[in-house]
């Protein structure tokens, strides 16, 4: 059986598992948009700040659900993998001729499928409530692609946490940590308008800022090469680091001869 075929079977299982746990897909679809609605209502006055890049806070904030949704997908996927370790299902798979890479890629395949669904939903809702994508239809496609890539990047870290700890509780406990990264970013304000110095420095050091800004640039600016290069660059970098470390952890976890 080819690696591709193994990946497809394991990805199918991953998708089935997600679909059969409604909390795993309803929460990422609803909660980020609810938070966007609340924040946009409360922070709309920020658009009157000198230098704020748009007069629509909801357009400014549309990037947020993509990132928060990716966090949900990541943690849920990590928990699923950790559960496979805890229940011994990983050993069952290890006893088949399955290639180790198929497990990781198949698992992430399910995460990516969830990313597709989420990105489509956030874009649809955004357009339905009147957000205009300044970069046009192609820009929307790029947002979609980047959003799915972000899910893959974050998913690789969820898998890493699961493989390193083998504990669903440990993976769950990462959610607040990821959330801190989200809040200490340019999520609510452009970095140049953040007046608190330490916060501005932290937001500039935080890779999540560049992911948000890449999506945001397509929504409110049009085509901003620098923002896109940074966003895609950070995303690809995170993916490489996450997948490399996950693969190494998988090798240790699947100690089969």
């Amino acid at each position, binding site marked *: 059986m080819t690696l591709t075929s193994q990946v497809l079977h394991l990805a199918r299982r991953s998708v089935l*598992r997600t679909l*059969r746990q409604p909390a795993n897909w309803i929460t990422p679809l609803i909660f980020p948009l609810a938070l966007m609605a609340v924040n946009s209502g409360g922070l709309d006055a920020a658009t009157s700040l000198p230098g704020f890049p748009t007069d629509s806070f909801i357009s400014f904030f549309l990037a947020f659900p993509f990132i928060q949704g990716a966090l949900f997908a990541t943690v849920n996927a990590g928990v699923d993998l950790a559960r496979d370790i805890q229940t011994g299902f990983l050993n069952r798979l290890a006893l088949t*001729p399955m290639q180790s890479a198929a497990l990781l890629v198949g698992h992430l395949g399910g995460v990516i499928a969830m990313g597709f669904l989420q990105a489509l939903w956030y874009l649809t809702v955004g357009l339905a409530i009147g957000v205009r994508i300044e970069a046009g239809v192609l820009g929307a496609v790029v947002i979609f692609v980047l959003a799915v890539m972000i899910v893959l990047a974050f998913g690789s870290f969820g898998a890493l946490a699961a493989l390193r700890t083998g504990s669903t509780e440990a993976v769950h406990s990462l959610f607040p940590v990821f959330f801190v990264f989200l809040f200490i970013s340019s999520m609510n304000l452009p970095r140049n308008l953040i007046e608190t110095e330490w916060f501005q420095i932290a937001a500039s050091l935080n890779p999540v800022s560049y992911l948000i800004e890449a999506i945001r640039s397509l929504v409110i600016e049009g085509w901003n090469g620098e923002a896109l290069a940074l966003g895609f660059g950070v995303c690809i970098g995170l993916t490489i680091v996450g997948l490399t470390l996950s693969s190494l952890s998988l090798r240790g976890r699947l100690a089969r001869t």
Partner: protein
Amino acid sequence: MDRAIEVRGLVREFKGGIRAVAGIDLDVATGEIYGFLGPNGAGKSTTVHMLTTLLPPTAGRARVGGHDIVKEGAAVRRTIGAALQEAALDPLLTGREHLKLQLALHGIPRSERDGRTDALLERVGLRLAADRKIGGYSGGMKRRLDLALALAHRPRILFLDEPTTGLDPQSRSALWDEVVRLKRDEGVTVFLTTQYLEEADVLADRVGIIDHGRLVAEGTPAALKAEIGRPTVEAVPTEDTEPGRVEEVFGRFGELQPSTAGVAVRLDGKGDLADIVRALDSASVRVEALHLHAPTLDDVFLAKTGRSLEGSEEPSEPGPE
């Protein structure tokens, strides 16, 4: 002997220098049911994990199905099926989905998967529950599905790690029947770990007893029991009978043994139960009850380790168990 499993000096150490398996040698013949008996933590599951290639040994070597477990792991996995200690199932998948995934990962052609899935479900009595999620299965149903998954690719060697732990008597009996059928009809070699004496006694052609990571005894159940001694007769005297009079009669037939219920003697060949009954009768010694205790595998364990297997538990297997 045509060997399905050959183990020499197998060792597994965990962090802190704990030796879960401390040098095991054993052979299992093709088509044999080998019972691997020992208390919790004795090293049974660690041994199974090594033999099924899930855990590399620290030292020693082993061949399973003619393949080296370290150098030819993939070939070993193609040869074996395994149902490990916990029925490792996904509660969100159905029985049918489990089997289809297992068959696909084993490379069984798509055209054969449906038929093979139905046949396996029928065989383990899960046809009616095939499309229900595992979360709703009973412990016995999970174990049966676990067995079906282990048999999916028609392995020549089957590892069953405490397959009946926690099962009700009916499910246990059904699983025993299936194990016997596998050996009888398909010639499958079965390596069965258990902490149940009765299970090893009923199923196994030969038994290996493991304690503290070492094999302390090996042979057929009958030979092992014969090796450690003769039957014991135990009498409960009536209220008006002086126990000393029973001891006096019993003393003619062998060495007296400690007994909580009355008086016991291990027969030394000078007579059997009938002779004892006749001697008690002729001495006008009345007893309430008379029991003949044939040696059990627990007696074997006791003789070899100084402890009883029943209730015995070792805390020193930090790995798989």
